[in-house]
């Protein structure tokens, strides 16, 4: 690959590294796994960069990250369907800990509710509400028709609303 292509890759793809890492964090729920998978995904993106035909670079990268996450999960298969209780305390050591302390309870409720969703619901919520992708982009990233994106998102929000309602009642 010529230097020019490397430079183009660094300019178009690497600015979306935070988004890639965020998606991997939510799908894998482990920061070390997320780092490994994102590194792998970026390397794959680099190898297949010639097949990138322009357009939404972020969605293109996120599609690769998502596939790598699924492959990773299939390979490791240890069931991590439960979120560890320490997730919030571990993050509290980060630089934003002051801010976290303020809204930690509400944030914890929301994060737990998201974690309780089945993976196919969780990913559409993250892609829509965190990554702020359009329906068309989400449909490209996860490879399903837009109608499926719509129905999954609507059902995911109904479940979340129920979980958040339950959480709010517990807290009061």
């Amino acid at each position, binding site marked *: *690959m010529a230097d020019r292509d490397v430079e183009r890759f660094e300019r178009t793809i690497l600015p979306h590294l*935070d988004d890639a890492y965020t998606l991997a964090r939510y799908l894998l729920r482990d*920061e070390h796994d997320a780092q490994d998978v994102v590194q792998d995904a970026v390397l794959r993106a*680099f190898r297949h960069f010639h097949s990138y035909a322009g357009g939404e670079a972020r969605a293109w990268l996120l599609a690769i990250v998502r596939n790598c996450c699924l492959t990773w999960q299939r390979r490791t298969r240890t069931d991590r369907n439960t979120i560890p209780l320490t997730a919030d305390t571990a*993050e509290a050591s980060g630089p934003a800990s002051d801010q976290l302390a303020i809204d930690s309870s509400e944030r914890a409720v*929301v994060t737990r509710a998201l974690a309780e969703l089945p993976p196919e619901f969780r990913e559409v919520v993250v892609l*829509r*509400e*965190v990554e702020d992708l359009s*329906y068309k982009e989400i449909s490209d990233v996860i490879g399903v028709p837009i109608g499926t994106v719509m129905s999954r998102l609507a059902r995911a929000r109904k479940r979340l609303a129920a979980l958040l309602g339950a959480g709010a009642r517990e807290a009061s």
Partner: protein
Amino acid sequence: MRCNECRDALDVYVDNELTPDEMDDVRAHLAECAECQSAHREVVATSQAMRAHLVRYAAPDVLRARIRNALAEETALAERPAPKRRSWIQLVAAGVVIAAASSALTFAAIRYQSPSTRLTNTVVASHIHSLVPGHLTNVQSTNTHNVKPWFNGRVDLSPLVPNLDSLGFPLLGGRLDDIGSHRAAVVVYGRRQHVINVYSWAASDRRTREPVTSSDKGFHLVHWTSDGIESWAVSDLNAQELDQFVRLLRTVR
């Protein structure tokens, strides 16, 4: 528009993904239906709760450094002709030959090197090894007060671990490494997507030696001795910023 049609379209309406005509239809229905209004409020509240409370993570410096390294390796590989597919027996055989040849070469090369070149090579090799996933730190912390005590009882010195975060050199953690016959305390800093490893061990004498800059395989190194501690800083960062880093490391308390 009927209520069931409106309910089906609510999420798409909230996400602003309906056609302009459909948006108008839903808006008109909501204006006159209290039950659909309440359903609408719930969708909006759920969406907003997600947006307000779900964190957007920043890719850590270490990950950026690892990616940069992996890309550099990848381009170096790509410049060689593409290998043909071989059977695994051939691959194993090739591996054995390469391993034997390279260790013989390394052995030969080491024998004819001056001690300081050998030390430089060892430090650079250790730096490269540290960039392998999971090898950078034994104690991973951005807090001086976690990293400095970690070395107690593990090495026979207490390395400098100033907080240089506000100066653009975040602390990433610490680890131990063997450099030749020395057990080195390694303090790891970041600079944008670069990693800086600072190796320290007890010097053989009390002489102070001012920092000397060198480079090897594209990495920059700074070597100095003071207060009975011999130190090496190594990074793929440019030489100027690495010098600046070493000055800060030696002065900031």
